[in-house]
């Protein structure tokens, strides 16, 4: 309903409530445009999920926001500063959980956390971090002997160690088992309730639905839509699919007025075999937004 999110605000306006403001961001790799005039707003204190298929530019976007990748054009303001020129004080206010690895592989988990504590103006204690990500029992284990999921948890601990105002997470739960994932979600909710702004990319729609106040879908180098998870793709959601069997074949009709379709059907047939009326879920909306499913509503797959 509220599409005001998409209306660009001028840079600098209302910065007290904006953690991230992006206008017309462009980036190309060897002539191939990855970001084509991206606009993005993340408010202070919210959890924003950036969704998109592989190669859509999610990682590129957040690396530009982190100030570790140069941009080709556009305006970017993160926590009041331009990431391309901001200094260490600014960087210390941002926590990042990247896809890459942490400290030296021959260090134990505890040694890694103890060492990196010395890089921040203010740090969470190692004991607090170990328990928050559930690595207490692996504290003495060397990083090289950790499983993929445990490494991800260590990366999360390192990301939140410096009590960041803005936490940026690039596919944080990839490789985590379901228990670790739940625990991670819990941690993110706690951080959010403490006032930390959270920007995450994810492949998992359930994760976005679970955590995010708002979801942005990145497709074709721009945001295809921005909305709370259950309002995403409002126009698409209004379309229901009515499906039934007729002469042994399945018929489908997509409509905004399923009631009218049903009335017509029942006027002709006494009984309608295999009748279903489905509304698109988050996944259907997402797939259509990123253009993976052009028009067909796959009622059969549900």
């Amino acid at each position, binding site marked *: 309903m509220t599409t005001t999110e998409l209306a660009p605000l001028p840079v600098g306006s209302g910065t007290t409530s904006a953690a991230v403001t992006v206008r017309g961001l462009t980036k190309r790799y060897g002539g191939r445009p990855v970001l084509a005039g991206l606009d993005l707003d993340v408010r202070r204190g919210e959890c924003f999920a950036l969704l998109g298929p592989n190669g859509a530019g999610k990682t590129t976007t957040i690396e530009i926001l982190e100030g*570790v990748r140069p941009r080709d054009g556009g305006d970017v303001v993160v926590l009041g500063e331009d990431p391309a020129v901001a200094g260490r004080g600014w960087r210390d206010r941002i926590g990042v959980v*990247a896809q*890459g690895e942490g400290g030296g592989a021959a260090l134990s988990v505890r040694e890694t956390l103890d060492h990196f504590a010395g890089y921040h103006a*203010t740090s969470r204690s190692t004991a607090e971090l170990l328990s928050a990500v559930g690595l207490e029992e692996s504290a003495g284990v060397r990083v090289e002997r950790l499983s993929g999921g445990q490494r991800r948890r260590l990366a999360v601990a390192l990301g939140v160690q410096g009590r960041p105002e803005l936490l940026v997470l690039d596919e944080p739960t990839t490789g985590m088992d379901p228990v670790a994932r739940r625990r991670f979600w819990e941690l993110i909710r706690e951080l959010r309730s403490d006032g930390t702004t959270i920007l995450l990319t994810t492949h998992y729609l359930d994760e976005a639905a679970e955590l995010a106040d708002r979801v942005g879908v990145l497709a074709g180098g721009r945001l295809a839509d921005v909305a709370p998870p259950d309002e995403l793709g409002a126009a698409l959601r209004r379309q229901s699919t009515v499906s039934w069997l007729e002469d042994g074949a399945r018929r489908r009709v997509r409509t905004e007025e399923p009631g009218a379709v049903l009335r017509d059907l029942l006027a002709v047939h006494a009984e309608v075999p295999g009748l279903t009326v489905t509304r698109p879920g988050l996944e259907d909306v997402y797939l259509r937004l990123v253009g993976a499913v052009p028009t067909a509503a796959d009622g059969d797959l549900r």
Partner: protein
Amino acid sequence: MTAVPTSARPAPPSAARIGLSRVGLELRLFFRERQQVVFSFAYPPVMLVIFASVLGADERPGGIPFAQYFLAGIAATGIMLTSFQAVGTAIAGERESGQLERLQLLGTPPVAYFAGKAGQVLVTAAAQLALLLPVARYGYDVPLPADLAHWATFLWVAALGALAGTVLGIAASALPGSATATTTAISALAIVLQFFSGVFFGFLELPGWMQQAAALFPLKWLTQGMRSAFLPEEAGAFEVAGGWEHGRTALVLAAWVIIGVMVCMRTFRWRRGEG
């Protein structure tokens, strides 16, 4: 924008403090890499034993026994390997595994990262020399530096050489390509430099263009400085310049350190690819 009440967050720790804590970290990581430790500490004595066994009867210009002349070269080479080669290789690996990316995201000042490497190199080079000198002294009767002045020369040449080698390693780690490719290039460069710089042969026996090429790099000066600490005063007459050139040695090595660090701070890459 001025109204943003950014909580009174103190400034992040200074580069010096991070550098110091990185020295401790680098040393811990170094000593956990068993192969590296064995190679660094065993290579110079083993080379000394091999060369002294084969060429021990030879004499260098001025009637200096081969082992005495060679000790200066192998001490310099050992320092070069623990600084230039080990540092260049390590950085390329850390970049590839994403460890440098983490440091970049934490806002680590490059100079603090360099300081960690330099500190680790100084400590390991000292340990390496402390192992090599007794082998030369008691195994091959090589006299140690004659007096306090020669010991002082030995120390400043070793320290400056180790720092210059570290800087050269940091610079070489920026070579394009994978960590494996960088490692290969660095090893090749190290071997060529050893021959050019008169580590294995008398420097005077080398062709002039080789001598001039070597003079651009720290190893030649490090080796020459080491000879001035280990060889008798008269042997200076057999150097290219007819003397030990302490002033020029200090100048070249210090220039490598200072200019090198400034260049590296600009060219240093935390990630593969652009940046």
